[in-house]
């Protein structure tokens, strides 16, 4: 087991390096850097001034070299202008270059300085990740049990009325992207003018002019309540519920046709017990991988939903970083995403072994 995990971690590291290099290369393309020069310097800079700025701020030279600096395996750049002032990657203007470390990159814990938030990337990303973590946790808590339940329920009697109803629901929910379902949910539950909120207010179930749920999740950054958190969670979960339910159903219908299910039935086991005791564990093996694959997918959904509900988490940050050309922040975001994807896959492979007694990983 130890060896397997080590080997997988090694592969993970290589994948992470390759992927971050791709992101680094794309974010550091010359037009991007020119844009950066104009936002940092002045919009009315001449072409030459832009080139000078790029050179003086360490954005020239080979991509590999700059990537190495970002990683912290190549010494940080320094530039001394004609006035004798020295600037560099590893120290702020005015500090003494001699006291600064030679290397400052990811490995040294220096993720760079966010040009948009105007503070170190690590600080801004940390709190955003925590916020997104809560969101994902809530989504998983809603999504996994619901979808497994629906999937098993529809898969245990293939072709029955229950199966058809639930399948229709799953297909509909998984065919609706978050930006559609989010808007629909807001219209239904979170406006005082339309949907069910005015009706509820009329019956006196909620206060007048209030809504059932809150359309903005900004307040959930400080204090998570059912009221402000339900809609973003539902928006993300709806999509996943349909998807995982479909997978579970497929797996369940297949298991129900297996010979050992016939064996159990012909032992005189009641149908309920057949499903709960004989089919369930076998049917969960396939969806497990899918559920683990949902984690990286959640990161994706989070981008849309956080923007939609103005919840300042990881996805929101990613959008801000991208639209403001905040290269260090963008790089850090992609790093986090890569690690999350690879880690969940590792966990899913290990969990698989415990779920399925027949599996031996090699």
């Amino acid at each position, binding site marked *: 087991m130890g*060896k397997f*995990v080590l080997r997988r971690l090694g592969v993970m590291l290589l994948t992470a390096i390759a992927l971050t290099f791709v992101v680094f290369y794309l974010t550091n393309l010359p037009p991007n850097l020119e844009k950066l020069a104009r936002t940092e310097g002045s919009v009315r800079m001449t072409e030459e001034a832009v080139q000078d700025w790029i050179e003086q701020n360490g954005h020239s030279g080979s991509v590999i070299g700059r990537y190495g600096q970002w990683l912290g395996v190549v010494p940080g750049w320094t530039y001394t202008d004609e006035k004798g002032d020295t600037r560099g990657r590893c120290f702020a203007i005015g500090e003494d270059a001699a006291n600064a470390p030679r290397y400052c990159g990811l490995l040294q814990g220096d993720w760079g300085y966010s040009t948009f938030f105007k503070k170190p990337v690590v600080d801004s990303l940390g709190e955003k990740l925590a916020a997104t973590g809560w969101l994902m946790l809530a989504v998983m808590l809603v999504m996994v049990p619901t979808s497994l339940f629906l999937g098993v329920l529809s898969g245990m009697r293939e072709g029955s009325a229950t199966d058809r109803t639930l399948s229709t629901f799953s297909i509909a929910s998984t065919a609706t992207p978050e930006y559609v379902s989010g808007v629909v949910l807001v219209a239904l539950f979170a406006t005082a003018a339309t949907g069910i909120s005015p009706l509820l207010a009329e019956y006196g179930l909620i206060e007048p002019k209030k809504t059932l749920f809150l359309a903005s999740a900004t307040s959930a950054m400080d204090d998570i309540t059912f009221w402000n958190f339900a809609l973003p969670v539902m928006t993300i979960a709806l999509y996943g519920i349909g998807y995982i339910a479909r997978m579970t159903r497929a797996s369940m219908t297949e298991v129900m046709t297996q*010979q*050992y299910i016939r*064996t159990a*039935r012909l032992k005189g*086991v*009641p149908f309920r017990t057949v499903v709960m*005791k004989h089919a369930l564990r076998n049917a969960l093996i396939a969806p497990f991988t899918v559920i683990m694959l949902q984690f990286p997918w959640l990161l994706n959904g989070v981008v849309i939903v956080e923007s939609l509900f103005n919840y300042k988490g990881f996805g929101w940050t990613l959008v801000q970083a991208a639209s403001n050309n905040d290269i260090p922040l963008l790089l850090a975001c992609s790093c986090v995403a890569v690690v999350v994807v690879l880690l969940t896959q590792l966990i899913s492979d290990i969990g698989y072994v415990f779920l399925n*007694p027949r599996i031996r990983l090699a």
Partner: protein
Amino acid sequence: MTASDTWDPSQPILEIEHLSISFFTRLREIPAVMDFSCTVMAGEAMGLVGESGCGKSTVALAVMRELGKTGRIVAGSMKFKGRDLAQMDDEELRHIRGSEIAMIYQEPMASLNPAMKVGAQLAEVPMLHSGMSKADAWALARQIVADVRLPDPDRIINSYPHQLSGGQQQRIVIAMALMAKPALLILDEPTTALDVTVEAGIVDLVKDLGEKYGTSMLFISHNLGLVMDVCDRICVMYSGEAVETGNVTEVFDKMRHPYTQALFRSIPLPGADKNARPLISIPGNFPLPHERPKGCNFGPRCDYFQHGRCDETDVPMSHIPGDDRHDSRCLRWQEIDWSAPSAAREVKEKAEIGQVVLKMEDLRKYYNVSTGAFGGGASKVVKANETLSFEAREGETLAIVGESGCGKSTFAKVLMGLETATSGSIMLFDENVQSTPIQKRNTDTVSQVQMVFQNPFDTLNPSMSVGRQIIRALEIFNYGASDADRHQRMLELLDLVKLPRAFADRMPRQLSGGQKQRVGIARAFAGGAKVVVADEPVSALDVSVQAAVTDLLMDIQRENRTTLLFISHDLSIVRYLSDRVMVMYLGHVVEMGTTDQVFAPPYHPYTEALLSAVPIADTKVERKRIVLEGDIPSAVNPPPGCPFQTRCRWKSQVTPAGLCDREVPPVQMLEGGHQIKCHLSREVLATMEPVIKIAAE
């Protein structure tokens, strides 16, 4: 409480009367079983025999009322202890299933829940049906596991099914069926997926348990020999109907239905001489359920068919007077001369055996496997083939016999170049090919060594027409100058395997199993193969077709002077067609010699056991029962010394004692080039008696 408590034991346990079952598809109703009647008395074992698709499994599942959504009982009744099963509701059925009627299945691995411990699956039965406490149920499970003669029951009940061998799994399935001491046991091909020596053990167990618990049995099999071993009565089915039923010995000795007779004539019997009793295949094909002929279903394939009589009306069962409940569904059974010998078959000259074509010397194939759950762990060496040496000559049939895991398939892979040998040499003609994988072999070598595969259903590309597949092989072998050439050759190949030329445009799904295997043979011979490895070429086919395909292989061999390496576990067929036999066990060749040498004493102890394990459908044959203890050891962890020593019954006769545990025996050369890898002295070997004896008439 229920009628079953007041049931009179002198009445039949199961009485099926005029049962008809149909499956309903969107297109039509497909009758699977028509007018089927049979009676099973208390303590009696009833054998249901027939080829695949004849409806025997449908009958078994109908008794369990497990016909799926599409199947329905359309007529007749099934009385179990006087109560009609067809009328029961789900709740009543649930109480009968598992407690009164239990079933044993064909594939033990698939019938056990992979994610539940064996003990839990066993204990479930008494907990359900007699409300036993969990601890008591587990204790009972442990006891029954010991009853089915599994070693170390405590370990077994705590393991998962995949941790057990096939034979052990089947014993667990049997144990599960016995947990509630049922009155009727349905066995659906219980040993088909198992090796012969394991099968012998299971059959013994089933017979003993039947006697011990007084259980009645419905035993479904396609193997007539097995039915003779186990059953008191037999019912032969053909195309959804019972065609003959009666006492086993009476049906075997005095068959009164042409199909039963044809079936017996198409299987090789190890007791009979192959020239005096040639195999005769049944002409034609099994009719599809919706294409059954009018009148007698067997009519179109029957030698005694009479126009205007057999194809006029439905044929009823008629009683054969004088015999014990012996019935036949034949209009002409009184007119047919049943003792007439089968039509003489032309005796074909055996092809002359020529030069050495293939020579293997000291061939070894080892695999490295790792054992840990996440890879890593201790890496072990599996010795799949160990010092394999032999020669095969032109025009010769060399049979390679052994049970699963003996290394016969590995050997075929190495020869074909799908794997490369660890050491040793393979000389094909004068070329050394042992370390050349198939990708690097030149086209000539590839076309000269070809293979006929076991399962014709999976080895043809389902989306390519038959002709196209053969032409594809010709293209790969660079045959012919133009497409027209290849097309012509393809048609000739179809002629060679006795398929109509019109089949060139058919898709594999439109072909029957036997026809598919013929296409497989045509493909193998496309490049004028000199050496053909036939890996169990007929074991997936029905008995009536087996004979035809076997004969075809022999005919082609005779014409092309091909060397045939015939891999099989079926000793009857091996004896019928091979010139020389090589017996393998755990990667070792334990015995090699001409067919007569191997099938007569002195035997290697393993060959002896193998021979005695083959069920023979002949009441005149007496055979010694030698049931081997335990399973074949794993090749990952072979026993020290002689590979067979853990199961050998002659071990005590070896001097000095303990030699078998320490040393791999040397190969003894007996007269006539007969080789035996055994420590037994020649004197002891000479005392061996033949396993199969034909009783004096």
